[in-house]
């Protein structure tokens, strides 16, 4: 065999030996954990659809102790699977949905007080009994602070969450709703701290 050909073959062999000896198995990207967490700014959710009190369905007032009237409304589909996966993951520091609330329900001098109870409705349309959201008290006025606070301890129960359910327990001397009575949440901002993704 030609001598130069032998040397060529040896040269190629050396090259392959070099390359094969340098594979770092600990960096196997197929086994790389690609879960990441991003610190996102507060998310502007805008305004929720206006809630016209006169059209809300009634529920038994016993649900809200002491209320004369209990009305309910639901924001459907607020939590879809992507939302849950990204914002409501175990290890999250909790999620707060903050808003300014305008409640124009009966005249201000009526002494009306509304207790707002908040529940999570799961994908199977049942109330999520594990997630406890602090209730809020509002009056008939504009520009009130309002928040939906879901603590970090409830994240593991949010996996099947879909809707946010409001119950308005209304206490007043005499009920006299008009078609113009409404509750409006605006400047809704979601404070989540971080979101979780898989690259």
């Amino acid at each position, binding site marked *: 065999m*030609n001598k130069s050909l032998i040397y*060529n073959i040896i040269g190629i062999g050396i090259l392959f030996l070099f390359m094969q000896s340098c594979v*770092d198995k600990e960096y196997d990207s197929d086994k790389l*954990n690609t879960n990441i967490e991003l610190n996102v700014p507060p998310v*502007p959710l805008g305004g929720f659809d206006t809630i016209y009190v006169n059209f809300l369905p009634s529920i038994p007032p016993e649900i809200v102790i002491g209320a004369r009237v209990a009305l309910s409304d*639901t924001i459907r*589909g607020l939590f879809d699977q992507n939302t849950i996966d990204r914002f409501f993951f175990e290890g999250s520091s909790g999620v707060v949905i903050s808003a300014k609330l305008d409640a124009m329900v009966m005249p201000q001098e009526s002494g009306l007080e509304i207790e707002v109870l908040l529940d999570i409705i799961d994908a199977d349309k049942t109330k999520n009994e594990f997630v406890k959201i602090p209730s809020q008290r509002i009056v008939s006025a504009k520009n009130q602070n309002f928040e939906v606070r879901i603590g970090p301890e409830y994240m593991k129960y949010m996996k099947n969450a879909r809707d946010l359910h409001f119950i308005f327990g209304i206490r007043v001397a005499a009920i006299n709703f008009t078609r113009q009575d409404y509750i409006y949440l605006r400047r809704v901002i979601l404070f989540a701290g*971080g979101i979780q*993704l898989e690259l």
Partner: protein
Amino acid sequence: MKNPRNKMKLRSLFSVSVAIIIGCILSPDGFAQSTRSSYFMKTSYTRTALNAALRPEHGYIGVPFLSNIYLDARTNTFNMENLTFPLNGERVTFMHAQISESQALSNISTDNYITTNLAFSIFSAGFFRGDSYWNFDFGIRANADSNVPKSVFELLKVGFKENETVTHDLSNISLAGSVFGEIGVTNSRTFLNNSLTLGARGKLLLGISYLDLDAKSLNITAGSEFWRAKSQVILRGAAPGIKGRYEENEYNPDKQDFDGFDFGDFNIPGFGLGLDIGAVYDFKDVSVDFLRKLKVSYALNDLGFISWSKSNFVQLSSPETEVIVSPNDYTTHNDGTTSIIDIFDHALDDLRQAVNLHEDPVTSGYTATLRANMNVGLEYEVWDDKMTAGFLYSTRFGKYFTSNEFTLSANYMPKPWLATTFSYSFAYSAFKTFGLAVHVAPTRGINFFLASDYSIVRISPQWLPTSSHAINLQMGVSIPFGGRQ
């Protein structure tokens, strides 16, 4: 509002940097068309590309498509060791929640670049005639540079705060690259009793494609009151029949989003000229004894330009655009059509409009300069006709950054037909690799060479660089003719 694409949008945004990185690794750039380890090897015919005054020992005809294949990539940051960390028995990315900010950013520089290069010779030949050496070659070259400033990593890792308005300045993101054919003619001559060799290489350049993305300014501010993005970005592209492609914005049918490029029938969209010049001085005739074994060399390469024709060139820009997103801009419906992530994606899309590129009217072609590079060499013979020691300083003047390399080499020729070089390059080796070149160059038969400046490449099973900052490899096959000079 609901759209399956929404679900992927955020992931896509944060995958952009990864895509750019992978794209740059797969596309090419660098110093020249030869390893620096070959610079002092007398048997090398490709070193003419590093210095037009350097010659091989004898004439040759390159085996078509195999006479020179050169691949090179280097980075100061982008490898798996810098971007991933061990955690609880597995590896995680720097963006994992349990990797601290200081740990994640400890390996990140102010500017983080990748520069890659490919040279592929289709035909080449060289021969001696009197004092002259002539070399002809035709090949394809491709190059690309990309720079990602540290602020991008800070955006990804540090991000934003809940109770504070935070600004991330992402200016100076850049990506530049080109692919072109090169027809070169080199001539070098000796002077002063063979002490001085001067060489020049003239090149006709056939431009195939060109891309230049320059984010002159790009910053994002976000807090609880508003999100704001400001940008001034220019994207220039040239390729056969290139045209911008747009798609309807999913939230606003009146808007068009840039969605890439379409191409026409193949043609040569750009023509240019290039010049390499070089000199080698051999101190063999000086009176000072110890200097007689010294050679110094200097080369300046890739001076020139490619002019891209008007019909094959596009320029897109987002001139001084500012977009502000406020909490009053959206509505969350209670009928099941709006989830939190829908609004989030919509807000991100609105913010992205700050960098939505729009095609500028093209009134003329575009001329882009080549990225020049310079080599300065010192060679000292330590063993007559057997071994020399060399020092090579290389620098490349990129459009957005300049990169340097310093290479020390020991060049050993145990037999006239066998040349070897062992080298160490300081800027990218980090004591983890070294250079190695082997030339089998008998005067008859087939010549073969294999060279790398970073021969121990540490890679993952998927061929991604792990701890290496540079990878290069060169090989070639040729047929020699004529005797040794």
